[in-house]
């Protein structure tokens, strides 16, 4: 028997999709059933009250959460987000309902016993409700009380070898794709770089000192499985400098139908025989591919790394051998100034230890943004306000044609007076001697 009647929430269960309401009801029931077996450290009816509170918000069309607070674990300024309910008498189970962010392993590799340990911990000291994973990629544990925080932190760090993630005005939990562990397209070891930078910037991750949040994301190749180009202030995307490797025999096998295109995906329907002209060559955005005497040719100088041909014919086309990564800056979601994609900052850098060139770029950007960024201003907004040229200046990266987004649309390279021989002042009389009116 549920603690609160929830007619409006019940309606949400009737749609065709899995419903979080059903999940929460199941969890509420399981907590009540197991209350004699587990010594719950927070109220047993936390999930019941969560449902009741949500129902009330639906009825009144008003939120009953108070945002933010003074919570955290000793020494850390992030990782825990305080949540309090403004109806604690009616819903005592969710009077405190803090969120804990846990740094996920790179590439999200888990052992089942780790997940079991995590779920047991969260049933014992929290609501048992989790979000695997949040938008930034970390494990999100939803709903606990203030006295449990240090206990959870101790258990995570001492017995599970797991740290809290980032929240607030600090470096958010860095996220990478599977990288070289599972993927032949990965142009650098994305997981390793993610790990190295996480360790290097522990202070920035746990002790907030930025104007606002800052995100790193690592994509092993331009397919961008973690969408770093759209979601991170500093995006690291694998690429190569030389040519796409072509296996002409495999190309012929694709054309002849011996190998299924797209690795056999889209095979549920008969799309007819593979047509390399229609499905690959004509779809190349820079039109840099053609067939010549039964052989596939690519003008690699024009390739923009859209990855389409490699994705369709993975056995015939492979990433080049001279690999590294590009760094893009300034992407963000539309909170203040509208959504922005990352702008190319460093066209190519080798992704090799000890990653000093990469760290230098990061630290130069931070020094500038911490100094010049306004409160609650993302890097992308500071870049817009002060200009891309300023970013090049602080990072010491020379201007490059690849920085131009559209010709004649984003001019950002301006001469400064000291760079021009003779400065901006000139003798009009001298000019007129050669150019009469």
């Amino acid at each position: 028997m549920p603690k609160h009647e929830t007619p409006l929430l019940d309606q949400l269960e009737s749609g065709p999709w899995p419903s979080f309401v059903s999940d929460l009801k199941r969890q509420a029931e399981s907590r009540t059933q197991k209350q004699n077996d587990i010594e719950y450290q927070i109220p047993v009816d936390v999930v019941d009250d969560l449902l009741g509170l949500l129902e009330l918000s639906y009825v009144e069309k008003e939120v009953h959460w108070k945002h933010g607070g003074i919570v955290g674990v000793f020494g850390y300024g992030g990782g825990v987000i305080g949540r309090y309910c403004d109806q604690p008498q009616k819903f005592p189970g969710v009077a405190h309902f803090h969120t804990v962010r846990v740094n996920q392993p790179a590439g999200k590799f888990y052992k089942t016993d780790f997940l079991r340990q995590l779920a047991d911990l969260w049933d014992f000291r929290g609501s048992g409700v989790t979000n695997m994973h949040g938008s930034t990629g970390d494990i999100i544990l939803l709903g606990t009380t203030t006295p449990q925080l240090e206990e959870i932190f101790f258990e995570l760090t001492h017995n599970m070898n797991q740290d809290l993630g980032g929240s607030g005005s600090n470096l958010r939990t860095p996220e990478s794709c599977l990288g070289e562990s599972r993927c032949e397209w990965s142009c650098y070891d994305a997981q390793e770089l993610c790990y190295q930078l996480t360790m290097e910037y522990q202070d920035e991750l746990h002790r907030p000192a930025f104007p606002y949040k800052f995100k790193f994301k690592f994509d092993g190749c331009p397919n961008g499985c973690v969408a770093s180009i759209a979601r991170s202030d500093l995006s690291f995307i694998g690429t190569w400098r030389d040519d796409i490797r072509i296996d002409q025999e495999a190309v012929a096998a694709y054309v002849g139908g011996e190998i299924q295109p797209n690795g056999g995906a889209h095979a549920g329907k008969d799309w007819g025989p593979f047509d390399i002209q229609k499905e690959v060559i004509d779809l190349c955005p820079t039109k840099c591919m053609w067939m010549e005497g039964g052989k596939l040719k690519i003008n690699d100088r024009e390739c923009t790394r859209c990855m389409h041909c490699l994705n369709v014919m993975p056995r015939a086309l492979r990433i080049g051998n001279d690999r590294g990564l590009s760094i893009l800056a300034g992407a963000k979601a539309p909170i203040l100034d509208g959504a922005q994609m990352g702008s190319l900052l460093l066209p190519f850098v080798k992704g090799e230890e000890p990653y000093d060139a990469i760290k230098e770029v990061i630290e130069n950007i931070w020094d500038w943004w911490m100094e010049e960024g306004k409160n609650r201003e993302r890097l992308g907004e500071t870049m817009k306000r002060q200009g891309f040229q300023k970013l090049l200046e602080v990072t010491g990266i020379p201007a490059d044609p690849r920085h131009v987004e559209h010709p004649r649309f984003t001019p950002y390279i301006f001469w400064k007076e000291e760079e021009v021989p003779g400065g901006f002042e000139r003798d009009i009389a001298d000019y007129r001697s050669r150019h009469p009116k």
Partner: protein
Amino acid sequence: MEKEAAKQEILNFLESKAGSKTKFYFNDFTKLFPDMKSRDVKKALSELVQEEKMMYWSSGSTTLYGLKGSGKQEE
């Protein structure tokens, strides 16, 4: 500037504002020390938090700093 002197100046600044404002952005403190590197300001602030003279306040997206015990406290 010496770190201890910087810490004292931060506390003086917070006490002088205690009547009107209790939470501050990180950049409000860097403005107090135009000649110091922001990283050193952060170190001074972190120490004050460790010593439990100051505390963090987080909305989840933005973090502010304040004197411990000042302003509205959690129930």
